[in-house]
């Protein structure tokens, strides 16, 4: 009885040990390689859940199945046009061949070191064999927009719809030369991925993408860029001010011109009206008076006497005058 009890206890413990060693749980986001005394068995497990194995003989090694991040340390790289920039990249990668991965780099730490050298190298190659703009811009959208805008302004200008200020505004936006790009930012990253892909495949790694996270000027270059920006802004401000002064002078000129025109035209018109009226009056007089010029002379003279001789005038009248005819 005692023995059988002990035996059962032993059996239970043994079964538990063997049982717990004959399966493994693979959580979501993981994959595993089963090895038999160090020798890999099968191609690895990627399906999450409960899996069976031979107890004690089989060992399970887990690796990540998820998309992993890689963060490169910023590099100082000169571009083809000799501009010194700092390039900071990140990448996303995935273990697609767990066996190869374990054999070549063992674990994620080992992988990181290899990815560092591979991606840094290719990034350096690609960046340094292209001009800076290729890493900054992704399209020639700026140039196209500018072209379109210029055409629009030209068109309007021909129709006489816009003043010079609008033309200036287009010019003002462009500071320096806008270079045309051949590839652009996205394609540069793709180029890096393409080149690195094969080397990483050998490690059981699939490179999903590489992002040029930050591209900035080197500190010493930065100062110069700032100085350039300042001088550009100053030039623009100067231009705007002088345009303002020009516009002002133009308006003042227009003022003088319009004022003279208005005043002289009014004078001209008034004089014409007066002249015409006087002519008309003359004609009226002439027409009426030619009927009896002598009588008119007489009657008008009398009227003129009446009007021209004032109250305090001295008047010496000869007794021989017509008026005094009967006085004598």
């Amino acid at each position, binding site marked *: 009885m005692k023995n059988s009890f002990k035996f059962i206890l032993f059996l239970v413990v043994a079964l538990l040990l063997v049982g717990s060693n004959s399966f493994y749980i693979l959580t979501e986001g993981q994959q595993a390689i089963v090895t038999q005394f160090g020798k890999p068995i099968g191609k690895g497990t990627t399906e999450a859940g409960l899996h069976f194995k031979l107890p004690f003989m089989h060992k399970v090694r887990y690796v990540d199945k998820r998309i992993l991040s890689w963060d490169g340390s910023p590099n100082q790289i000169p571009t083809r046009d000799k501009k010194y920039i700092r390039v900071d990249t990140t990448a996303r990668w995935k273990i697609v061949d767990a066996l190869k991965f374990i054999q070549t780099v063992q674990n994620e730490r080992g992988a990181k070191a290899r990815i560092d050298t591979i991606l840094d190298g290719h990034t350096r190659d690609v960046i340094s064999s292209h001009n800076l703009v290729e890493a900054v811009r992704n399209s020639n959208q700026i140039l196209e927009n500018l072209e379109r805008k210029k055409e629009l302004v030209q068109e309007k200008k021909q129709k006489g719809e816009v003043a010079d200020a609008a033309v200036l505004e287009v010019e003002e936006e462009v*500071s320096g030369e806008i270079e045309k790009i051949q590839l652009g930012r996205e394609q540069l990253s793709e180029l890096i991925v393409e080149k690195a892909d094969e080397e990483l495949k050998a490690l059981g790694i699939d490179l999903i993408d590489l992002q040029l996270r930050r591209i900035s000027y080197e500190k010493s270059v930065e100062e110069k860029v700032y100085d350039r920006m300042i001088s550009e802004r100053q030039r623009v401000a100067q231009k705007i001010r002088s345009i303002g002064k020009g516009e002002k002078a133009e308006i*003042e000129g227009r003022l003088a011109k319009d004022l003279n025109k208005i005043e002289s035209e009014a004078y001209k018109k008034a004089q014409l009206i007066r002249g015409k009226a006087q002519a008309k009056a003359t004609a009226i007089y002439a027409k009426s008076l030619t*009927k009896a010029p002598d009588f008119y002379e007489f009657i008008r003279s009398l009227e003129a006497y009446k009007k021209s001789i004032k109250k305090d005038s001295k008047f010496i009248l*000869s007794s021989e005058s017509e008026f005094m005819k009967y006085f004598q």
Partner: protein
Amino acid sequence: MNQGQPDLNYELYKLKQSFNRNKKAFVPLIVALLLAVGFFTSYYTVEPDEEAVVIRLGRYLDTTQPGLHFKIPFGVDRVIKVKTKIVHQEEFGFRTQSLDTRRTTYSSRNLDEESLMLTGDLNVAEVQWVVQYQISDPFKFLFKTSEPVRNIRDVSESIMRRVVGDIMVTEVLTTGRVGIAGDAKQLMQEVLDKYDMGVLIRSIKLQDVNPPKKVQASFNDVNAAKQEQEKMINQAEQAYNKVIPEARGKAKKLVSEAQGYAQAVVNRAEGDADRFSEIYREYIKAPAITKKRLYLETMEELFSKLEDVVIIDSKVKGLLPVFGKGITNEK
């Protein structure tokens, strides 16, 4: 049987008895404990702002909604709760320092690296922005990528630089804001969809967008210049508007006056002509006597008005001294 045997047997029996007695108390205790643990780990609640991912023996089983749910205890079912209803926010180029004070405070110290970026014309702009996202698929969010939040940050920085890199610095600082945010949101979603990580970008909002501090003054100066330009033009226009309408009015006045004069001259001429015609009509009937009458009447009127009339007899000579002494001859 042996003499000592019963003793031993008895001892053993006693031991067994006590063990059995103890077992009888022990087993229910263990069973009760197991039941209690099983009971307390067999349910879980999901809060209203969450969803829960259930993993059974490592394998994805279900995503459960808010409420009370049951699960298999003892680590068979594992439940991971994810805040799916909450809009999460990532800040770039600045950090919200404190929401406790009355006014939210921000810090942008040492984040130049994050916010400084090159524009399409190879200038530099400082852009601060916010990405708001929601977890649209909690399972994918948990198990598709190892560092989902870092992916969001990396991609957002990269995309923002790509969008800004395609625009001029002046546009970035002024009219481009809305376009940048929209483009960045769309592109970012595209990249995240490629990772299939269960994240939905709700919005990207640009915060402060400035030129680098060192060049800020010169950018402001351009704005000032624009203001000055406008002011100058306005002043000139103002002067123009002050003078010209007045001049137009005056011109109209001048013409109107001339027109009035013209009317008057013509009317007077016509009046005079008519009057003359009328007089003449009567005069012609008796010219001599009328002429005389008119002459006398005029003279009469004239002389009666005058205060100083001297009549000189043509026969009187050497009259001159009389003059100037104020001798007046009243009529």
